[in-house]
């Protein structure tokens, strides 16, 4: 090969970025299918533009409500809703954590025997696959309207979240420490108490605080189906077209969530 040939070959070669999906036919099938789906999906969305046009005025009133939120005229209702939401979240988090600790220990393969592991994993899966709203509908039907149904819903949801993460944490612990405690002749309880608990405790506290935050946010929603809390107040305000009161409630929710996030970051730093 002469020098001229080589430089010619190099000139014609252009670096091309490798495609995201390597097999060409699969790539085109996926792209084509995606495009077809998009066309069908967008075509099936019916929009009543007259209704949207009429709604714009309401949207404007809503934004005005945000600029001038009305805390005073429904203050009693807002206060009661917030009180319900906050107490509901605290009690549900405490009870949920207390229940999920034994279930989490049972769902960790490295310390639980197989039958117990299976039962605990089943409880976790059950709790995680049903949404809070659906659980709330059932609990409201059973226990009647009010915060008690909400408390039960949030406790139930906490179990799935916390027990799963706790179990994964226990499975990830440093085996050497457990081995060391076992070598002193410790029993099962002593191993859990001295080798596992100190390793997972900081994370457990962090996760509990995070769950408290989630529970408060959820408590603002399950009220819509009658399970008490600020969601019920919000729903009523929307039904009465009192957008300024609704805006006040939303601002309070955002403020509390932000405060909780800030506080939990601080506490987690302090615990670790």
């Amino acid at each position, binding site marked *: 090969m002469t020098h001229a040939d080589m430089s010619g070959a190099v000139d014609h070669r252009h670096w091309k970025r490798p495609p995201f999906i390597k097999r060409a036919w699969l790539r085109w099938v996926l792209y084509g299918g995606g495009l077809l789906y998009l066309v069908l999906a967008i075509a099936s*969305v019916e929009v009543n533009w007259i209704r949207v046009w009429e709604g714009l005025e309401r949207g404007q009133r809503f934004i005005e409500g945000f600029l001038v939120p009305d805390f005073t005229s429904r203050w009693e209702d807002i206060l009661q809703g917030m009180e319900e939401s906050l107490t509901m979240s*605290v009690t549900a988090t405490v009870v949920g954590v207390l229940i999920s600790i034994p279930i989490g220990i049972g769902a960790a393969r490295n310390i639980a025997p197989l039958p117990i592991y299976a039962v605990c994993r089943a409880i976790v899966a059950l709790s995680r696959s049903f949404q809070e709203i659906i659980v709330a509908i059932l609990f409201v039907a059973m226990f*009647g309207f009010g915060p008690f149904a909400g408390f039960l819903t949030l406790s139930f949801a906490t179990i799935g979240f916390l027990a799963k993460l706790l179990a994964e944490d226990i499975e990830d612990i440093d085996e050497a420490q457990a081995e060391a405690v076992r070598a002193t002749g410790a029993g099962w309880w002593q191993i859990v108490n001295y080798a596992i608990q100190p390793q997972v405790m900081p994370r457990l506290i962090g996760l509990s605080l995070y769950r408290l935050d989630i529970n408060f946010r959820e408590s603002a929603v399950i009220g*819509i189906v009658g399970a008490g809390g600020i969601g019920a107040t919000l729903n009523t305000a929307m039904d009465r077209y009192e957008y300024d009161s609704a805006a006040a409630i939303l601002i309070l*929710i955002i403020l509390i*969530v*932000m405060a909780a996030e800030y506080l939990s970051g601080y506490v987690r730093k302090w615990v670790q």
Partner: protein
Amino acid sequence: MTMTDLAHRTWRRRSTKKELALWLGWLVLVALFIFCWQVMTESTIWAFVTDAPRQAADIGSRMFPPRWEYIPALLEPLWDTLNIATLGTLLALFMAVPVAFMAARNTTPSTRFVRPIALLIIVASRSINSLIWALLLVAVIGPGVMAGIVAIALRSIGFVAKLLYEAIEEIDAVQVEAVAATGASKAQVMDYAVVPQILPAFAGITVFRWDINIRESTVLGLVGAGGLGLRLQESLNVLAWPQVTVIFILILITVLVSEWVSAKVRHAII
């Protein structure tokens, strides 16, 4: 210290002071719990609570057998639910990507002015549940699928933007430098050094959020935003429990399938 003193000491994990502080902390927690419990249960009618097992048995007996003939009426709402989740996720991506680039420390145009605004958008979007967004949007643009799509989109912005900007902040700066050293323009650096690094994370986040959105869009209909929730609301209003059972089962299957799909896709990407 004499030998006898040492012999009497047993090993303890914490000093006395720390132990006292710990006990005080637990005491405060218990007191807080009791206080909250009392406030919460003030208006609880305990007769209803003790009656609950009977109610549960009653509802259970009404829910079975499920009314399977109801399934054909659910196919269209199911399609709507899938569309709400998918189109909502896509809409969210369009809005979340610029927000993420504005929020990431290494790509933001201004750390002092633009970044706080982007972070505020993220926090506001994340603290309001999609059901509440739907409640607002149904009032503004009327009931239907459209309100659901926008609700899902507004809710997802914060989630997608937060995870994406964290991914952008974690990129390998050496690659960016290497591309910049070839004399590439700012847009080319973005295209060849930044985007390829975050693309897998981006795809993973998208599928993850889509999976969550399927869950959320199944119940948006409860406040009038279309999909399966609408049928759920109708069936609950007329106490048609056998239909409610069918809807629950369908929701459960949909959620499990979407979870499976998202796990498969994420596995293929990472």
